[in-house]
């Protein structure tokens, strides 16, 4: 493959600098610094590693209502070749469903990728479905929770981590790859990368009008889903005492873990 890989990125509030309103118990986002969603950095890293072996172009793409470019400069400093920002105040009320439509239009108009990398999670809870939704809209195969990737003539081979097991999966190109959280360590930007990241030719800024979706689509720029309530999933702690000598205890423990689907193969 010598074409283009797109990486979808999104800015999220910096979790180390969050403030909570004492009265309402809600987050105060005003004045909070933003960062790139950490899992997006991992997706970018996988795209960059793939580029080192196969030589395609890596373009980061963002859909955002604020017009902020800092995070895209960061992605360029890490080594992305180009960045496309589609920014419009009308996007303020969008969710992954509407954003997937916007990304599809942006990719088809400005990027023409053969492969799209997306994070499988975001730290602000609203991003995990972007890969699957985009794959559905594009009609492309989807690799979920990828940890490693090989490109072949007409497809990809990936190591994917799903639930309690890892699987080797294959998909035809073009495809969407949703990247697993926490497996890939992103590289640090270098001073040279930062120096070159501000070359104006490497960042393209577009608006909703440039997507050519028409007035009708503008009517639909509202969140299709809404969050009613956020709660922690209930968990239960299972306590058991295993008796016997060390080997016996280890054997019993391993068997129980495997039976629970928490890893490994039955010996």
């Amino acid at each position, binding site marked *: 493959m010598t074409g283009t890989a797109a990486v979808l990125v999104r800015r999220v509030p910096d979790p180390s600098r969050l403030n909570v309103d004492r009265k309402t118990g809600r987050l105060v986002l005003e004045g909070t610094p933003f960062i790139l969603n950490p899992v997006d950095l991992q997706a970018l890293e996988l795209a960059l590693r793939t580029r080192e072996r196969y030589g395609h172009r890596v373009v980061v793409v963002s859909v955002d209502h604020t017009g902020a470019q800092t995070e895209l*400069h960061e992605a360029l*400093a890490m080594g992305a070749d180009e960045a496309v920002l589609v920014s419009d105040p009308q996007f303020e009320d969008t969710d992954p469903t509407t954003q997937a439509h916007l990304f599809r239009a942006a990719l088809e108009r400005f990027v023409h990728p053969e492969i799209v990398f997306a994070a499988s999670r975001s730290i602000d809870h609203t991003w995990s479905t972007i890969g699957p939704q985009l794959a559905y809209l594009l009609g492309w195969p989807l690799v979920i929770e990828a940890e490693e990737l090989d490109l072949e003539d007409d497809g990809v081979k990936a190591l994917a981590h799903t639930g309690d097991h890892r699987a080797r999966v294959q998909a035809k190109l073009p495809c969407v790859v949703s990247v697993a959280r926490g497996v890939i360590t992103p590289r640090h*930007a270098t*001073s*040279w990368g*930062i*120096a*070159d990241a501000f070359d104006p030719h490497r960042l393209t800024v577009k608006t909703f009008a440039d997507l050519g979706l028409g007035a009708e689509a503008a009517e639909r720029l509202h969140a299709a889903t809404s969050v009613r309530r956020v709660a922690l999933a209930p968990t239960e702690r299972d306590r058991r005492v295993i008796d016997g000598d060390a080997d016996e205890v280890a054997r019993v423990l391993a068997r129980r873990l495997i039976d629970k689907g928490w890893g490994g193969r039955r010996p």
Partner: protein
Amino acid sequence: MAIEFTFTPQQELFRRSVRKLLRAEIAPRVVVEKEGHGVFPSEAVRILGAHGMLGVPIPREYGGAGLGEVGYCILAEELGRVDSSLATIAGAHTSIGMTPIWLFGTEEQRRKYLPDLASGRKLAAFALTEPTAGSDAASIKTQAVREGDHFVVNGRKLWCTNGDRADVIALTCVTDPALGARGGVTTFILEKDTKGFAVGTIEDKLGIRNSSTAELILEDCRIPVQNVLGQVGLGFVVALTALDGGRAGLAAGVLGASKELLDIGIEYAKSRRRKGEPLANEQSIQWRLADLAAEIQVAEYITYHTAALVEEYYHRLATGAHVPETLREQVSMNAASAKVFGSEMSGRATETTLEILGASSVLDRNRVEQAWRDQIISEIYEGTSEVQRLIIAREILRKGGTQ
């Protein structure tokens, strides 16, 4: 004259990226070593080099990042927060070892040395001080005598940071004793494998122990004529120009160290309770923290104001543009003020934090205890506080205090 500082988005991104790199890769590798000579942080230096942190002010065309003196001071400040030894190593390499080659070197010298130095593949140092010439740098004795296409150098240099680690050393020698500082001093680019050059004693220091401070011995050391930096007789200008920038970087380093100390003090004052109340509720503690915070603000302004002036000055020097005398004087005076204020402030910062933390601060291998040992040196090296005051006094007595 700037009234308000705004870092550019690029400088902001640079600071964030440096911070991220230092937190993830460098801070875990910092070792507090109090026995023997300390441990030179080779791996940390390698990581800094690989990320372009050892060539920040050098232009892109010579393999640096071209982020200017302000960029370099951002790095120095962030390094100062993490480890003063590393800030010292990077400072000796960048601002006084490598920068003179950029500012005064011939095009050939720049192309030969800068790419390796700016990428951290090689390390640089600066050698001026001698056993009988410290603050009175003009009385150096190390002599270089021309013989054909070589200069034969004899003498000794002291307190050379990175001296035993450097591949390239900016070496200041007397070439004409009669002319002295006015045209009789020349800087040479000394390569470490040159015959007649040897490293002597490695000093065992109170602080910044992981940076190495070496004695250099030159015995009939033959340096080729093409390694004269700039031109014969320019050495004193080279040294003073490099030191001006170096002082801005040092001011940035102690600014970072002081911010870190303030944070440690605040953290402790908020968490430590006495009679059920956090220490931070006591006015005596609040005042000490407030004084320090105010001083840090002052230091930050003068440091980056100086950095911006140095950036302009160096850019003009390197490109051969006209350098107004007033800019040169402004740089010297500001760099001296930033250095003396910053280093002495970091002394007060150490004292404040020591007193707030009480017994906890003097425990062995504690960060405050280490800062205390490191800080003292900042008032001595690259021009003592007294030398900075001499420079400031010279300017104000000549031109008046309010320019």
